[in-house]
């Protein structure tokens, strides 16, 4: 079976900076795949290219065999691509509930007239949406106590969870998570890791994530790809990647190496 996502020879430059340099990556259906690498390695750039915000100079991106390289972001959403952002990008003027409802936007049909008149099926669609979200997202992520809170007032960890909720409401095939546990305390991190596993286990959603917390990466991912200066310097199972000399070097050349790669120093 072909991988769910195929990234082939992607290159992306910003002026003189080569953010991505001939990067290739396969994400198998049903897997949790992690992309790691030091700061500025190009991880977020890779995500932005996959979601359609950056146009790569070369290379292709295939989702379920369909070439999406030149499709605008909303089209990719319709094909089942969802994501969260490294710097939370919620709709700050809205409540938690409205943020999550927006996740379902592509699956809904109500047009301008029906919406304004709140005609029968516009109403039915809204009620059905609400039921589905309550059960599949709000209960699932245990955020029922904050559903009517304005997101801007929530603590950071909860905002991250709401962003995941919004992405899940999209019922995606592939979920991109850019640093899902960054800035979280131990407990929040464990919750989030469990949610990511549940998302895959219970819904069969394929996950591609970027994360600096190596404990989480080692614990939950099936496959790890390592970027440095825009180039892929290693890929494989978590255990294999941890012992690769190139990977260790990339991390040792980096100030937070010890904190980032527990166990890596022992292997050198």
């Amino acid at each position: 079976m072909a991988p769910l996502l195929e990234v082939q020879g992607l290159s992306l430059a910003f002026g003189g900076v080569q953010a991505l340099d001939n990067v290739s990556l396969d994400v198998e259906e049903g897997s949790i795949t992690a992309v790691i690498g030091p700061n500025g390695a190009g991880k977020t750039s890779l995500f932005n290219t996959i979601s359609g915000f950056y146009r790569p100079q070369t290379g292709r991106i295939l989702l379920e065999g369909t070439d999406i390289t030149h499709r605008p972001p909303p089209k990719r959403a319709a094909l089942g691509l969802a994501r969260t952002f490294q710097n939370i990008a919620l709709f700050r003027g809205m409540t938690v509930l409205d943020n999550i409802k927006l996740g379902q936007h592509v699956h809904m049909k109500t047009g301008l007239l029906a919406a304004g008149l709140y005609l029968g099926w516009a109403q039915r669609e809204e009620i059905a949406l609400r039921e589905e979200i309550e059960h599949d997202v709000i209960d699932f992520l245990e955020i029922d106590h904050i559903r009517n809170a304005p997101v801007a007032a929530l603590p950071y960890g909860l905002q991250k969870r709401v962003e995941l909720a919004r992405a899940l409401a999209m019922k995606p095939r592939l979920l991109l998570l850019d640093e899902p546990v960054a800035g979280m305390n131990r407990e929040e991190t464990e919750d989030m890791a469990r949610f990511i596993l549940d998302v895959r286990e219970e819904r069969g959603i394929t996950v591609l994530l970027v994360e600096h917390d190596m404990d989480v990466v080692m614990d939950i991912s099936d496959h790890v790809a390592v970027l440095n200066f825009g180039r892929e310097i290693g890929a494989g199972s978590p255990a294999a990647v941890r012992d690769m000399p190139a990977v260790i070097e990339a991390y040792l050349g980096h100030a937070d190496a010890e904190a980032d790669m527990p166990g890596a120093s022992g292997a050198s």
Partner: protein
Amino acid sequence: MLIGNFKERYEADEAIFRTTRSRVWLGIAVALIVAFPFVGNSYHLYMAGLIGINIIAATGINILTGYTGLISLGHAAFMGVGAYTVAWLSNNVGLPFYICLPLGGLVAAAVGVVVGIPSLRIKGLYLAIATLAAQFILGFVFNEWEPVTGGGRGTSLAAAEIGGIVLDTEFELYWLIVVVMVLALLFARNLFRTRVGRAFIAVRDRDISAEVMGINLLRTKLTAFALSSFYAGLAGGLMAYFFKVVSPEQYTFSVSIFMLAAVVVGGMGTILGGILGAIFMTLIPEILGEITQIFGAGAVAMLSSAREVVFGLLIVGFLVFEPRGLAQIWKRIKRVYEIWPFRT
């Protein structure tokens, strides 16, 4: 976790006037609106008519600027397009008002879409300047396209008429305006609790996320422009029937600023904000005028400029002390009132 009948619970939760309290307020508002024309004199009804028209127009700019985050400095021009369309259709085709009004709205919407096209590429102040350009270009058209607009003198039109009743007194026009206003407000209120309206707000709050959610930015922005201009066109059309004359100086840049100020003062991005802002902006100059009268005829000339200053200061005061507008103040009052005296 929720217990009980899900369906009923969500239905109630998604309803427009959810709480008993909001239903009571709605009842009071309806009673006031219905009773008003029977107790007010023709000046009161004239002011009420003006307020109703301004509420429709302010709600229109609120849709674009308050909810979608696109600043418009050309709202009055869209109102003018509606007004001239109505006058022209009424004079040259002889269509009744209930056909002219929606057509006026539609023509304004079409012009609004054209003006909105740059909004994909430009944002913020730059977009504001583009709408400013539209204001001046359309103003020029109103002045110069004599065969259609009557040029600088403007054009007059016959009173609206339905089933043999001529709507030419303040009393009759009041009802026409109230009906259109209520429909326009209900439409807007519904819109913003469903998919389409949420997309508008999403574009305002985070356009990057909106795209990831599958929202087409250009389409959403153009829809906002169209709807906002439709409201402006309706308001302009009502103005045409209200004054029975349409002329360029009714739809100048300063009127656009007036509308923008109304939603800023009232509270951007809430339906109540457009309503309160329009009431405030229409009434305060009148009230200040009344006050200057108290000081006698001699003082009127001198105080009329002071009146402008006070009006300006009030607006600035709002921006400084309550950036979220009258709607927010109202919310706070309600909260105090909810707590008092039983709840804690």
